[in-house]
């Protein structure tokens, strides 16, 4: 216990651990661009993943036989450790280190979560609602876009939320293959043995993940007006 107390004392009193002067001097040159780069990587990856996952999810919900192979393939992609996936991607001839392989890997990780939630969202639409829509003379396409997808949207957004938080975390590792972002601060901090940079990168990545989580949670609630109505 005294060891822990000593350690805590070290952490709190160690002047080198957080060098506020460095943070002040490098705020605009290093920290802000890393933060922006991280937002860019995460946003582009989730957006691209959505463009792929939504049609695949709708297709898998319709043709149930396609669903197990889709989850199998995306499941394997999901379980490959990120550093290994980055390494495999940059070994492919023609793929240079930089943001591109990082985005490809981040898209691959988002697919499983997004497809699963799209299918679950579509499954949650009550069959009576679809019958009613058909009875009102809506075509299949209209039913999909005006009834099923809007009703499935909260579950899809819940998937986007999990995927985004996951992606923001994994994106830090992408800095190892020059993807940029907050991981750059962490890796530079490790190689320079400079804790301030590690802490700045770690704390900002966590804060970004928490902000994204809360914003998407708010969106998810907003998209469930029926739940709000029931509560009040």
């Amino acid at each position, binding site marked *: 216990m005294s060891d822990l107390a000593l350690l805590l004392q070290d952490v709190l009193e160690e002047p080198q651990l957080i060098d506020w002067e460095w943070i002040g001097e490098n705020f605009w040159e290093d920290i802000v661009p890393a933060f922006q780069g991280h937002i860019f990587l995460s946003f582009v990856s989730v957006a691209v993943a959505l463009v792929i996952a939504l049609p695949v999810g709708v297709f898998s919900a319709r043709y149930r036989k396609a669903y197990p192979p889709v989850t199998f393939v995306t499941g394997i992609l999901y379980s490959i450790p990120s550093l*290994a996936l980055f390494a495999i991607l940059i*070994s492919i001839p023609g793929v240079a280190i930089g943001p591109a392989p990082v985005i490809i890997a981040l898209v691959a990780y988002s697919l499983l979560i997004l497809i699963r939630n799209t299918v679950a969202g579509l499954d949650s639409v009550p069959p009576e609602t679809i019958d009613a829509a058909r009875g009102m003379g809506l075509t299949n396409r209209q039913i999909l876009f005006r009834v099923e997808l809007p009703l499935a949207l909260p579950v899809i957004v819940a998937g986007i939320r999990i995927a985004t938080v996951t992606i923001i975390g994994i994106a830090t590792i992408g800095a190892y293959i020059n993807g940029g972002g907050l991981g750059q601060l962490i890796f530079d901090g490790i190689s320079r043995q400079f804790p301030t940079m590690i802490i700045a990168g770690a704390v900002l990545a966590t804060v970004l993940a928490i902000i994204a989580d809360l914003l998407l949670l708010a969106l998810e609630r907003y998209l469930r007006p029926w739940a709000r109505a029931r509560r009040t």
Partner: protein
Amino acid sequence: MLLRILEVYTRPDFPEKLRQHVLLSLAALLVAIAIALPVALMIRNTRLGAAIAINIGNVGRAVPSLAILALALPLLGIGFASALVALTALAIPPILINASTGLREVSKDVIDAARGMGLSGGQILSRIQVPIAAPVIFAGIRTSAVQTVASATLATFIGGGGLGDLIVEGYSRRGPEILLAGAIAVAILAIITEVGFGALERAFTPKGLKIAQKRGK
């Protein structure tokens, strides 16, 4: 290329790196189970406890694994031990959150019925709650195990060893066969973990629950 990759696996230091990776992951997972399961049992009947577990789980999900490992460097120093501490911290949240929700979600009616049959509190826990929650608890352990194997790859950045060493060596020395050999070994290890724990999860699902699940479908 394939031959050169296979050659890396015959290097004398490969078994040692593999052993380090498995040992690091397994030790972190076991310590995390030893911490998370008793805590989940202790807090199973309190609302506050559940809220704490869920919040730890959510915050744990938001903190990047690289951040936890990198932070261990200035706090605990370089090497295997600090990697182990960091990986254990990463392994706890999924187990805690699943064990806590799994135990809470056992239906009140089932517990009432057990009490009506004269089972004591301890018997209800060991014969009713734990078996019914077992699949959910195991799913948490599985998530955690796969995550730990993946994060153990990053241990190399703080001198913790493991298969990540090969990836870093291949990357910094421009040895594509070493890079790929490390990456493939890690990927296979992760997939084996996923599939292996999936089988364990099924094995730990009580027979009655499987029948109920099938009927539910």
